[in-house]
């Protein structure tokens, strides 16, 4: 080899230079990673290391007007898993399945949650049965990846009594997660699905806390609470206007046999005291995943327990709507409270080539408007409707809110069915031009025909009758200051109507429902329905005490046959409410 000292020296310099240069490049690379990009890599290391385990927050309680508990939370357990792959989720469910039965739905639910957000611990079981929790805790070392923590679970102490009000909670669905209104919600969380739970989701929803656990590369938890928890926070209790005692009473009356809806409210403020739909369901069973068998039973029940008959169901109002006809006529100056019709009632009314029957084949004779209300004389109202005329009749009905939702603070209230203005166009559209006759006027004037109402909206209408012609918006939480002016009658007319309504219960169609010591005013309704022509729906809407009303009650019994039956229920509700108020213990000193 060429080994001259000079050449060796030159090569040594070259080699040394190369070494220094190469190590400088390495050092520069480390400088870039450790100094310039430090923040990014530090975050990446923290992301690697820490897993955020959500700490479920309790939903806010729901209380009645006196503070009695309608909805609260009880402890339950969730089992979550820091999964890295979908296969890991499946395998974990299989391993757990060896200890305690796991349904395919539970596996599917866990997979679904994993797919939605793989970075969060996957909730394997919400409201895990105690047996499972105990089995897993016993084998803690075999399942270091599982996080078992207590989670508050929704509980309704009165269960089915409040089902029409509270609705239910359930796990947020995929569709809801994709919906922007649920931004910020995570898979596996419980949300209000119906009723107050849904309506006031914003106010009931708790703020989830965070617990930081340190995991290793295999997702095994190596240190719990690696950083201070962010505590979950529950909102303040939701105070409602409801009277839980009254609600229980109403549910008790309906029991298991009756089908129908009830709304009880304060006429002056619109505060809803009670709202019931029968048959009921058990909202507690919805919490943490409704069992399929129960869901199927509810869905296949022909009485439709999940269909809220107080706000969703619409029924022909029948005679309770006669007050609307009377008010429209009086406002138009066509009749007064003492006026009679040209044709006295002999059990029906001949119009053209059709004979329209009055409900009472014996007839009511030549009655005044007050008498026609008291005895619910159809013949009188057929003639009154014709006198008003179809167009004005419909316009009047619309003004009284016939096509409006009551505005109650519950989700998915249905709008009542009623013709639109102008009337002719509506009927042409519905039946075709010249395919209908003026006879529709007769049906409409007695609350039949193209008309069906919700119980809530009829309660709202009667708050106007119970007060001064302005209606209150039914509210379960808070109260709406604004009152909707429905009609304006002279004081004499108003008094006449109210006396007639009192007479309905005193000596009229609901005479059997008289109460000792309390004057009740109201109107029965017996409405034909298309579903079963022989079994009419029974209505009663009224208020008490007649002289100074403090409660309006609307009762609708599906296939209740006659309004007097609804009246009996309504007056018992009023009695319970009013008598209890009266006999409340006086506050004593000392």
């Amino acid at each position: 080899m060429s080994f001259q000292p000079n050449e060796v020296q030159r090569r040594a310099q070259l080699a040394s230079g190369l070494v220094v240069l190469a190590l400088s490049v390495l050092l520069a690379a480390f400088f870039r990673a450790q100094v310039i990009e430090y923040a990014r890599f530090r975050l990446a290391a923290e992301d690697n290391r820490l897993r955020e385990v959500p700490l479920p927050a309790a939903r806010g309680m729901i209380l009645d007007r006196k503070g009695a508990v309608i909805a609260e939370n009880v402890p339950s357990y969730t089992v979550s898993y820091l999964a890295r792959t979908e296969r890991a989720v499946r395998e974990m469910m299989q391993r757990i399945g060896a200890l305690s039965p796991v349904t395919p739905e539970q596996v599917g639910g866990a997979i679904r949650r994993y797919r939605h957000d793989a970075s969060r611990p996957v909730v394997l079981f919400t409201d895990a049965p105690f047996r499972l929790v105990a089995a897993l805790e016993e084998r803690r070392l075999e399942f270091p990846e599982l996080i078992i923590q207590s989670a508050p679970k929704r509980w309704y102490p009165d269960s089915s009594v409040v089902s029409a009000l509270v609705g239910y909670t359930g796990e947020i669905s995929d569709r809801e997660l994709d919906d922007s209104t649920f931004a910020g919600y995570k898979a596996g969380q419980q949300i209000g699905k119906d009723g107050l739970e849904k309506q006031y989701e914003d106010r009931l929803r708790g703020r989830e806390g965070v617990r930081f656990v340190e995991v290793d590369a295999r997702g095994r938890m190596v240190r719990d609470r690696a950083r201070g928890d962010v505590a979950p926070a529950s909102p303040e209790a939701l105070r409602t206007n409801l009277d839980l005692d009254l609600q229980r009473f109403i549910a008790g009356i309906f029991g298991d046999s009756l089908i129908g809806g009830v709304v009880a409210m304060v006429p002056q403020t619109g505060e809803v005291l009670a709202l019931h739909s029968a048959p009921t369901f058990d909202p507690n069973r919805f919490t943490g995943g409704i069992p399929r068998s129960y869901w199927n039973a509810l869905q296949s029940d022909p009485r439709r327990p999940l269909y809220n008959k107080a706000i969703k169901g619409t029924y022909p109002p029948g005679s309770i709507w006669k007050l609307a006809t009377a008010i429209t006529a009086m406002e138009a100056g066509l009749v007064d409270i003492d006026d009679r019709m040209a044709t006295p009632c002999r059990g029906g009314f001949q119009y053209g080539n059709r004979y329209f029957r009055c409900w009472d084949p014996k007839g009511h004779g030549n009655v005044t408007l007050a008498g026609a209300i008291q005895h619910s004389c159809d013949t009188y109202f057929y003639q009154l409707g014709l006198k008003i005329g179809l167009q004005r009749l419909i316009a009047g009905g619309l003004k009284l809110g016939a096509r409006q939702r009551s505005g109650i603070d519950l989700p998915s209230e249905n709008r009542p069915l009623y013709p639109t203005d102008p009337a002719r166009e509506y009927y042409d559209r519905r039946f075709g031009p010249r395919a209908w006759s003026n006879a529709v006027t007769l049906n409409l004037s007695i609350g039949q025909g193209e008309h069906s109402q919700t119980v809530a909206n009829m309660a709202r209408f009667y708050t106007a009758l119970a007060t001064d012609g302005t209606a209150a918006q039914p509210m379960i939480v808070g109260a709406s200051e604004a009152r909707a002016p429905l009609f304006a009658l002279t004081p004499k007319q108003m008094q006449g109507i109210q006396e007639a309504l009192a007479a309905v219960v005193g000596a009229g169609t609901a005479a059997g429902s008289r109460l000792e010591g309390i004057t009740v005013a109201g109107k029965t309704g017996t409405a034909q329905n298309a579903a079963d022509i022989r079994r009419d729906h029974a209505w009663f809407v009224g208020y008490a005490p007649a002289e100074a009303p403090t409660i309006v009650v609307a009762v609708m019994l599906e296939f209740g046959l006659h309004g007097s039956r609804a009246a009996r229920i309504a007056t018992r509700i009023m009695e319970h409410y009013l008598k209890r108020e009266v006999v409340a213990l006086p506050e004593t000193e000392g």
Partner: protein
Amino acid sequence: MRSLRLPADRPLALVALLLTAFGLSMVYSAGQTDVPTFVEGLWRIQLAWVVLGVMAGYVITRLSSRLLEAVSVPAYVAACAVLLLLIFIGKGAGTAASTKSWLAVGGVRLGQPSELAKIAVVLMLAHVLGAARRAPATLFELIPSATVVGIPWLLIMAQPDLGTGIVFIGIYYAMLFWAGVSWWLLLLAASPGISLILAFSTGLWGAWFLVLLAVLALVRPARWEGVVVVAGNLMLGVLAPLLWNRLDPYQQRRLLVFLDPSSDPRASGYHLIQSQVAIGSGGLFGKGFTLGSQKRLAFLPEQQTDFIFPVVAEEFGFLGVSIALALFAALLLRTIRVAVRSSTPFASLVAFGITSAWFTHLMVNVGMTVGLMPITGIPLPFFSYGGSFMLASWLSVGILLLISSEGRGRADQL
């Protein structure tokens, strides 16, 4: 006998000891994980190997370079024989479970002979190159030395151990350079390999071919040399895709991941990403000895062997990296100095061969952890856990000290 010699290069010994102590403490730290693994106790075994290595190194310093030259041929033959044996009875281990780099007797793994074979090859190369009166000047004259490296290289590539293969090539080129081979001959010898790499882009390969022709026109080697070089480049350029297909999928992935780590973040890219996260999150001063979270939580793969340097970076930060690299720089510059001062061509070439082996290991290993090099599993001298390698490193230190003591001038002069 000792009194006849100049003192050995004590600063070199000191640097090697410092690196070993640093490395041993990192092997200890590598075992400190939240979920304990077998790595926890490895530092004790490593310590035993250090003791053995230092003792072996000391014994070497008692010998003479003449003896070294005398044993170079038998050592080389023995090394090749063992490597050949490994093809048939070799065992895999750890991340390289599919390779056959381990020598085992009765199920007990004795070591990786290829680490010691490096020293044998360095000695043999130094013997062959040093014996010639002048440096090889033609491709033809490269054939003896190429054969010396080529035989063990082929045996190692057959294991297959790509990383060690790279080190052999590094050693060979460095020693040719040190022997005084001209730059253009080195380039021509390397040109087929460059063709192989560039062949994946036709445009690049074409450009390279033009450069090659320009070099040939400039230096005007013998006609047959030109023919061989052009033919070799053409052949490998054409064969490249076929060779690529012959690589194992994991090797292909590693090369692709080097180009873009995020192309496979869960599998092959995972190591690289986690290594960079460990390094970057160390910051200026690190997370503290044994406290690196990436390592503790097992995000860092092979933290006791191939990826031990990220542990340094994570726990001691840029400061620790600077100290470690400074120590390596001192080691390498000092060994170059030993090579310069050597009294014989053989000794000088041996010293430089050892330098180049360490340098290649350092660049490939540390460069890999920070993303400058593709992932090839080769260890970091004095740091990575591994008995044969520690032994080989300290044998090398012993050889360097021996050579330095026989060299011109004062060995321990700074």
